[in-house]
């Protein structure tokens, strides 16, 4: 009894600074406190300074009339709208170029990465050349190059190139005819949605059947024919309306139809080519990380080369590919802020004009940081979710 008491006393008497667990808590709390204090210091000091210099702060300017035009708004916008709407137009433009960029980059990167590993000497060397050149030229220079090419090599609107009737290319942009507004297009969209749902159900059914019987089902081709065929049927059933909105020259520029500006084109091409070179290397590394034994084992059970790639190699390679691929996607999004150098009205460009006009530099820069942070966090959250799905489930 006495003995036991003594032992307990000894453990209780250890001062907390000799207990690594408690010490850890103290240090972490201190670190947190320090960070908070620095944050508060910066914030309060800025506030105090601004007040002392009688500079207006806050986001009150959001509701004021912006008073400037934006080159290619995705939603209807005019100079009479508010700063908040102008900034939204900017955000949408950034999302547009990032989204299109990420899709194209992934496709081209995957293609070049696989080509890089091809046994065909010419194909593999071409892919290598592509990677080496595009990876090693600064992206800003590439943007200037493409932009310069667009407005120097292409003709003026009056002498536009017209490769197909209704399609015009000049140094103000690319103009395509689009179908005139008609109620049938809404139904075609619904048909497409229905095709997606049917394909998904088909996929579940075919998997169940394969588990039971071992029979496979041509999923991809049926998905393709469904998603093209169903909207097409709707279109034919409604009498196949063919009214087109064809771009035409009026005054200085073409109007009507669908158009892409050279600024958008140069930015998209520049970002996609630059980033896809990195993605190609990531894909190559991912595929090479799967040991050759896997290929041999798959071949030995009689899988065809195409199935070896899709069923054995790629699923394992994806585990290595996804995390750095996420990085490249974020890079592309962030690099899209270089748009201002070639005149694409992205978010940073609009925010810069806003700062210029309102003089609210701190608020403006904070807003830029917040928006990019949100876009990046959402992208990486999605990719993390996808990464978890593709990760090897260990038993």
């Amino acid at each position: 009894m006495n003995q036991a008491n003594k032992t307990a006393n000894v453990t209780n008497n250890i001062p907390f600074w000799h207990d690594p667990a408690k010490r850890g808590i103290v240090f972490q709390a201190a670190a947190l406190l320090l960070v908070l204090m620095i944050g508060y210091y910066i914030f309060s000091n800025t506030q105090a300074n601004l007040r002392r210099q009688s500079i207006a702060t806050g986001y009150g300017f959001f509701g004021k009339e912006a008073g400037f035009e934006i080159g290619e708004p995705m939603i209807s916008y005019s100079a009479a709208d508010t700063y908040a709407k102008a900034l939204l137009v900017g955000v949408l433009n950034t999302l547009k170029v990032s989204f299109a960029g990420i899709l194209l980059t992934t496709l081209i990167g995957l293609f070049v990465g696989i080509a890089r590993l091809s046994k065909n000497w010419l194909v593999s060397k071409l892919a290598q050349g592509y990677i080496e050149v595009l990876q090693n030229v600064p992206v800003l220079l590439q943007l200037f190059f493409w932009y310069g090419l667009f407005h120097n090599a292409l003709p003026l609107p009056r002498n536009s190139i017209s490769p197909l009737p209704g399609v015009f290319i000049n140094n103000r942009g690319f103009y395509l005819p689009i179908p005139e507004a008609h109620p049938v297009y809404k139904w075609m969209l619904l048909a497409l949605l229905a095709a997606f749902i049917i394909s998904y159900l088909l996929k579940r059914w075919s998997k169940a059947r394969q588990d039971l019987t071992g029979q496979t089902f041509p999923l991809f081709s049926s998905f393709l024919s469904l998603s093209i065929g169903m909207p097409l049927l709707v279109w034919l059933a409604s009498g196949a309306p063919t009214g087109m909105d064809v771009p035409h020259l009026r005054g200085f520029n073409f109007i009507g139809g669908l158009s892409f500006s050279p600024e958008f084109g140069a930015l998209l091409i520049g970002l996609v080519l630059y980033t896809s070179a990195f993605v190609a290397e990531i894909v190559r590394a991912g595929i090479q990380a799967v040991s050759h034994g896997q290929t041999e084992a798959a071949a030995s059970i009689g899988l065809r080369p195409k199935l070896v790639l899709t069923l054995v190699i790629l699923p394992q390679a994806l585990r290595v590919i996804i995390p750095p691929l996420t990085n490249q996607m974020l890079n592309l999004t962030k690099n899209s802020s270089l748009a201002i150098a070639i005149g694409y009205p992205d978010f940073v460009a609009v925010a810069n004009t806003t700062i210029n006009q309102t003089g609210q530099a701190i608020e403006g820069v904070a807003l830029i940081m917040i928006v990019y942070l949100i876009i990046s966090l959402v992208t990486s959250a999605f990719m993390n979710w996808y990464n978890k799905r593709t990760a090897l489930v260990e038993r």
Partner: protein
Amino acid sequence: MLRSIKPGIVILVAALLLAIPLVVNAGETLDSVKARGYLIVGVNGGLFGFGMPDEKGVWRGLDVDTGRAVAAGIFADPDKVKFVTLTTQTRFTALQSKEVDVLCRNATRTLTRETELGLNFVAVNYYDGQGFLIPKKLGVKSAKELDGASVCVLPGTTTEQNVADFFRTNKLTMKPVVIEQNTELNQAFFSGRCDCLTSDASQLAGIRAVAPNPDDYMILPDIISKEPLAPAVRHGDDQWRDIVDFCVLAMIAAEDLGISSKNVDEMLKNESPDVKRFLGVTPGNGKALGLDEKWAYNIIKKVGNYGEVFERNVGEETKLKLKRGLNAQWKDGGLMYAPPFK
């Protein structure tokens, strides 16, 4: 056993000290400039004729010489000045946060800048206005014929807003192409990406000067905005504001009085009471400003009067070939008008 806690305590104490907002003593700007021994002026850095280093690295320009005039007024030495390059985004923040003493960066005086940004603009050193540069082959005679045009815009002072206002007022449409870098924007314009380029008329003259063939381009007669470009100081130091204001006005007044850097020494013997007061022969002005009585003499002797500074930097003999226009003396039909120096 204390040793392991010590760093933590040190950090905590440091953090506590930092957390007390630094109470920056407002102080008189003049005193701090004198104590430092030189003046810090925020300038453009890339605008020919207003603020840009030449090929030898010597700063040149109307705004630069305005900064030198203030330095000459305070130190009797126009070279006791440091120029800091500022962008359109950083210029006001730099002034507010005391990185620069004076901002001479072709900034337009506006109501919100005076109030919400806490700035005081002093005497205008260049009356500018926004215009359009077009290729002659466009065949346009007036800006009102530009409906539907693609417009290359140099983001600057209030350029984007002015051009949008102009098109809205006249019920016209436009497509802006806003490029931040001058060289890229000029390239886009010269290659025909835009139908016209808009900016302050003084800048258009500079852009036209670097065109592959300047004669193919013309500046439309329409001036769509008022751009009184003036140096600025912070709110809250009236003495400093007066000093900068009158250093600029001294150059204008000197031209009015017929005093230039060449004849300023002879003018010391001039009998006119205005000239005597201006050059400090009759003392009083210097003391009132808190400067040496010779302050105006030093500005004119070492930098020159407004006419000299104008001709040297942007006048007919330079690449810009700008006429005096609105910037002529009031006697000659311009807007340059200095109050009496008494």
